[in-house]
């Protein structure tokens, strides 16, 4: 399988050292998540060749060694695209000039200028000087520019930080499509766990320059012991098969091990499988099946694990067939309902949560 092998030791200033050894899939989207100053940008810089790790480090994309003892491929030969945390547009070129910059400099790829302009809605900006763009506009141009280099690996450092909600979800959709269509692997740095969960297939958690956790999003999300589940925005990811369309109400039905989950409409043929992100905070449990509720999705589940904590709220891991849901409830509720491991309860998933448009489905 194609992979990105990293064994990086990079001594920075300010007592910071990036020290990591891991193998990431060079396919799909890998999110890099971690607090500010944990070394996310430093890692991307090393991969891009903009920062030199120690001599003995190795960076390998599939069979190409980008960095190895005695060998260092310079950045412009690595075939990467990099969207920087600051846009770094060329001030002497207009928007179009910036977009065209990589065209002559990389082997012709499958992404055309027109496509990028369309996806990112850059039509109106083409003739503008880049110093007259707003922050969000700059960021979109930077994304487009990186795409037009037809990279073999796309590095994105918080590309959506300056975008408004609509533009951000538009961009997210683009990146997803792109990842699916062009098979360009992406490393995606973000502080926004929702963004991460919506987008990523794989996750790398960094803290103080070290990997704390790494694995597929599905695995990491449903485990109670990862940093992710401790986050405000913990969520489980489950897979379902499209089983029907409810045209009149604009819903799609997914089969989850025999149960029907209704989500906002996905125009996909029946039988195709899909990943759904279900935030823990949207899931509540009841002992009795609620009736006459506006909540559409109510499933019988088994409590697999109860977080043992003295905090006001706790996480439950609920099994639904062979898959898992997470639920965040108050300790008081858990106590009042007398919840125990292996109890059979009903999980109700606030439907609207699954209906928030394309960004909620992967």
């Amino acid at each position, binding site marked *: 399988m194609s992979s990105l092998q990293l064994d990086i030791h990079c001594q920075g200033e300010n007592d910071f050292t990036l020290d990591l050894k891991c193998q990431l899939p060079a396919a799909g989207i890998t999110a890099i998540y971690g607090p500010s100053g944990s070394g996310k940008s430093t890692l991307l810089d090393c991969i*891009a*060749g*903009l920062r030199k790790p120690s001599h003995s480090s190795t960076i390998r994309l599939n069979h190409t060694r980008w960095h190895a003892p005695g060998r260092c491929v*310079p*950045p*412009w030969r*690595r*075939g*990467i*695209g*990099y969207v*920087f945390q*600051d846009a*770094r*547009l*060329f*001030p*002497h*070129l207009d928007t179009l000039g910036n977009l065209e*910059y*990589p065209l002559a*400099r*990389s082997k012709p790829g499958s992404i055309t200028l027109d496509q990028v302009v369309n996806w990112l809605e850059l039509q109106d900006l083409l003739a503008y*000087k880049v*110093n*007259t763009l707003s922050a969000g506009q700059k960021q979109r141009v930077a994304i487009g*520019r*990186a795409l037009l*280099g037809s990279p073999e690996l796309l*590095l994105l450092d918080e590309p959506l930080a300056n975008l408004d909600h609509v533009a951000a979800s538009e961009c997210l959709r683009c990146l997803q499509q792109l990842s699916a269509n062009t098979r360009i692997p992406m490393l995606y740095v973000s502080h926004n766990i929702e963004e991460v969960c919506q987008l990523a297939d794989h996750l790398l958690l960094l803290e103080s320059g070290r990997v704390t956790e790494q694995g597929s999003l599905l695995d990491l999300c449903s485990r109670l012991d990862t940093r992710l589940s401790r986050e405000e925005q913990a969520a489980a990811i489950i897979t379902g098969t499209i089983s029907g369309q409810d045209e009149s109400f604009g819903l799609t039905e997914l089969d989850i091990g025999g149960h029907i989950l209704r989500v906002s409409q996905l125009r996909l043929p029946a039988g195709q499988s899909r990943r759904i992100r279900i935030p823990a905070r949207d899931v509540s449990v009841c002992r009795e099946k609620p009736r006459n509720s506006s909540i559409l999705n109510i499933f019988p589940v088994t409590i697999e694990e109860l977080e043992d904590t003295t905090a006001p709220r706790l996480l439950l891991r609920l099994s639904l067939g062979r898959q898992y849901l997470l639920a965040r409830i108050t300790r008081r509720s858990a106590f009042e309902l007398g919840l125990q491991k292996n109890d059979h309860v009903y999980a109700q998933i606030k439907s609207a949560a699954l209906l928030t448009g394309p960004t909620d489905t992967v």
Partner: protein
Amino acid sequence: MPLNSAELDAIYLTVALASVTTALLVLLGTPLAWWLSRRQGNLSAAIEALVAMPLILPPTVLGFYLLLLFAPDTAVGRAWERLTGSQLAFSFSALVIGSVIYSLPFVVQPLQSAFQRIPQGLLQAAATLGASPLDRFRSVVLPLTRRTFLTAASLGFAHTVGEFGVVLMIGGNIPGETQVLSIALYDFVETLRFDEAHRLAGGLVLFSLALLFFLYRSSGTSSWRVRT
């Protein structure tokens, strides 16, 4: 006021000398300035000092030492003669070499400090977009330092036009060969032919003023300015 043929010769020679010198200054000064801008330490400080050196000596004296260096019986003089078949001293080539040495600091130093102020991030961005170092230089550094190049080249050009101590010494003031405008002008002043001096100086000043004016005006309007 018609120009006589000696003056025409001098004008032609001056323009040729200043153009060739400026071209060489930019050609040599650019990589040197780039190299210096990327380095710190003793070696680069020493080279910077060396580049600035010719400024300290009065041009005639510098010219005198260059003449000692270029004379046919020196290593340099002999090597040149073996290579080109002609004598170095009192040739157009000698004028060019002398002028380049004399004006080098005016080109290297502004370029160096402009290069140092190029945002590193832009070069990194260009690298990730597939631009080789040379390409980056051409497509990012050059456009961003256009105005400094203009400044440096115009300083170098003007300085060569005005310079005469070095030229006089290593050129030998041979009409049609090494007699440039500045020497002709100097001769008028020396021989108290003030009217002719005024005429020539006036023409020179007006022409240069006009040239520089248009140069600076055009560089101003299309200037890029980073907002942030």
